[in-house]
């Protein structure tokens, strides 16, 4: 039996944050009920495709999945359990935002098998939280966090951000220190990216953002402090305690397969990449009619080289990097003769070799797009 990852998209939020460009709507109960029904029909209708697979990771993401009413939540989880084969002890994550969690909810999550919680904090400064358009304060995060611990969550991830408007290196260090004090098992730290069609994108010019150099300093500080305090980096933006990496997210970077359900959800299944359109009404309609349209992401005539490139660019997001031996086994070609340019970045300390594995250094991670355009074929 082969393993698969499962992603469920919950496109609802209490309020959309000013920087976010993920597909998400303002939460309303009627739509939630309609949507969960549609999701369940979709899962049920497709279940036969996955009868030969074990789902060893499940990730309920969003949006803010923790806005779901418990009734809806249980309906969804029951549907998943009923129609798909889950690996015993597999990773089961739900994303949550402070301000949407309660003891009742957290207990219900535990009861239903959720064993990993990913909490969006972003900053420990209430001023920065307000700038980002978050609905919660730092204190509310603390309450949710301790509540989760009390309810038995022993695998918690916290999301933070840097490169925020008016943020100085010291401001970010404070957030970092505060988060470390909570001692979560996992930390994701993202550099704010201004996306078009977001409130931030529209007032980009009036946002006083740190320079590339300052962001670089924040990133280097992030990597070194977390490393010193016991979280080891395993991906460009992800850090964890031992054995606490996100197994679900690792699938994305290791070119392993996963299927997604919900509008805008992406899948990689049987070697093919596809997604569903970003329109909840349309999704509900199609799911109820039993034909959710898959939109293929694969270009015509995808070659061996394309597949190698994709593998390399994903693998190089990981601190473990690429094993030339594994590459050769997978593609039947020598890694270095396919990607000879990578070697010149060793001297400049952007790339390192450890135990024969090629990987980016933190400095290299932060300019990885530039280096990838040099080493990949395309």
């Amino acid at each position, binding site marked *: 039996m082969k393993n698969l990852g499962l992603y469920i998209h919950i496109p609802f939020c209490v309020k959309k944050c000013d920087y976010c460009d993920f597909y998400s709507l303002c939460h309303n109960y009627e739509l939630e009920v309609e949507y969960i029904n549609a999701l369940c029909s979709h899962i049920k209708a497709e279940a036969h495709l996955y009868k030969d697979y074990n789902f060893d990771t499940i990730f309920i993401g969003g949006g803010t999945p923790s806005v779901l009413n418990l009734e809806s939540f249980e309906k969804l989880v029951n549907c998943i359990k009923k129609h798909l084969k889950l690996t015993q002890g597999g990773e089961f994550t739900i994303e949550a935002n402070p301000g949407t969690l309660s003891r009742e909810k957290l207990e219900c999550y535990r009861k239903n098998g959720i064993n990993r919680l990913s909490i969006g904090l972003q900053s420990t400064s209430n001023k920065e939280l307000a700038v980002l358009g978050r609905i919660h304060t730092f204190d509310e995060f603390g309450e949710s966090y301790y509540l989760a611990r009390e309810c038995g969550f022993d695998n918690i991830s916290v999301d933070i951000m840097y490169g925020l408007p008016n943020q100085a290196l010291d401001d970010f260090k404070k957030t970092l220190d505060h988060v470390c004090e909570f001692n979560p098992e996992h930390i994701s730290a993202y550099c704010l990216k201004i996306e078009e069609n977001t409130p931030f994108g529209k007032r980009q010019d009036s946002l006083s953002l740190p320079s590339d150099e300052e962001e*670089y300093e924040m990133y280097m500080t992030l990597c070194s402090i977390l490393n010193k305090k016991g979280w080891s980096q395993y991906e460009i*933006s992800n850090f964890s305690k031992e054995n606490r990496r996100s197994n679900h997210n690792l699938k994305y970077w290791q070119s392993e397969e996963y299927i997604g359900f919900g509008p805008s959800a992406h899948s990689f299944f049987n070697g093919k990449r596809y997604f569903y359109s970003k329109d909840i009404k349309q999704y509900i309609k199609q799911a109820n009619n039993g034909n959710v349209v898959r939109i293929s992401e694969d270009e015509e005539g995808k070659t061996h080289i394309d597949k190698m*490139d994709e593998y390399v660019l994903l693998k190089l997001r990981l601190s473990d990097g690429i094993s030339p031996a594994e590459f050769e086994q997978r593609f039947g070609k020598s890694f270095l003769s396919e990607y000879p340019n990578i070697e010149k970045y060793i001297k400049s300390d952007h790339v390192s070799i450890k135990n024969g594995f090629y990987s980016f250094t933190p400095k290299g991670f932060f*300019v*990885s797009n530039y280096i990838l*355009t040099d080493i990949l074929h*395309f």
Partner: protein
Amino acid sequence: MNEKQKNIRNFSIIAHIDHGKSTLADRILEYSNAVTKREMEEQLLDNMDLEKERGITIKARAVRIDYKHKDGQEYVLNLIDTPGHVDFNYEVSRSLNACEGALLVVDSTQGIEAQTLANAYLAVDCDLEIVPVINKIDLPSADVDRVRGEIEDVIGIVAEDCPAVSAKVGLNIDQVLDAIVEKIPCPQGDENKPLKCLIFDSHYNAYLGVVVYVRVIDGVLKPGDKIKLMNTGAQYEVVEVGYLNAFGLQKADKLSAGEVGYITASIKTVSETRVGDTVTTVENGADEPLQGFKEALPMVFSGIYPADGARYNDLRDALEKLKLNDAALSFEPETSIALGFGFRCGFLGLLHMEIIQERLEREFNLDLITTAPSVIYKVEKTNGETIMVDNPSNYPPTDTIKTAYEPTVNASIITPTEYVGGIMDLCQDRRGIFKDMKYLDSTRVELHYLMPLNEIVYDFFDALKSRSKGYASLDYELAGYEPSNLVKLDFLLNGEVVDALTFIVHSEKAYTRARKIAEKLKENISRQLFEIPIQAAIGSKVIARETVRALRKDVLAKCYGGDITRKKKLLEKQKEGKKKMRRLGSVEVTPEAFMAVLKLDDND
């Protein structure tokens, strides 16, 4: 003199750009029924697309028109079109030499401009009868009386009863034809004298070889005649002679004194038939050629390189094809460390350069990188040797130079009075030496400056236009070489000299130029993983420095299931951009960087 010549009128139309020369030519052809309106392609004489777009005539053409005058007699009118830009002054003068008269077209809303004057003086030099024609009288802002006065005062020719027309709407064109017949003298050649024909243009035709356009001064020319080009000494046998009508070539038995027509003689390239050369017969030929022959000498040089090195051969083929019809274009292979294989091309002037570049890109579909235009410097070295330098990288080291000379021009600028101050500042800044200033009337001034050509070839024309809201006009002619304190300015990227950026500059301007170009380069070099110093140096002395800081951040921090395809597309796009970069040693530079250093607006 025979009777036939009495009814021939050979004339040109001269004008400042946009004063309506080509439109008037069209109307004359139409009115005299050389073409009907239906057959008329707008502005028949300008038959290159590029000319139409730019509204200028690049190559001269000639048309023979049969016209019945009101006196009842049939006349042959030969209209010889002239190129309308300062770069082609010599060609204009040869066309004028083939005529006895010229129509001087002046826009009644603008009055006399720099090229009106320059062309009028050329016509006077050629002893032509000048017939002013005041055009665009249909426009509300037309001021015919003022322009008449201006022509009389400034040029000194009678304009009291000259035709006032609207070529656009076809008003009073009959008066123009009458004036041609009545005012322009007939040719005075002698059929019995040895043959002398003036070559005023030629073009390459795939079937006939070179078609040579001539004005027969004396003698008679027939197919089968053995001819000689007196300045080059080349000999040919005439295959065909004839006239040029509105739609092409019309064969004839012979061409005789006073007539305008063409010759074919299995000639392979236009560079063999130079404009201004004299055609005579091999036997019993003329003793002396016609005066005024000059070889078309390129004045402005620039390196032209294919953006894609693999297209070097395509570029060579394209230049060869253009050269077939353009004797003034010169090119020879050149190698640049920065840009690879390309050609050093010589042009008559900036417009000529722009036209060639545009034709290469448009007609031959080439992507080009061009280096900053340069002029030819004359250098007397301490060892007694004198060299001409058309490529700045070849400029000798300062300690081997005794005296350096640069070409200068007499520039004439006509401008509305309110812009005089700004323009004088500009000329001063460009090292111009003020000669004189003349009021054409109470609102317009003509300024004369002696200026180094190298100050004009960069962006002088653009600067002039921007300082005069587009109203000032410029004309210039070469005025010889002057000693000058020149230095060679090198640019180093990451410590390495980029030969394609090297240029020659007057020592007083070296610092400002160096600083400006260094800044421009900084804007045009994208960040790389290491810091890139940009240095401007004279010899080993660095006089300006900028730094392109190292790239610190180029990352997609967040990449999950949904982002994989998107991320790949982003990287592909980024890679596409990178492919267009030129590698200069260890530094990648956009092709635009080379162009950016060309345009340095002083008003910045």
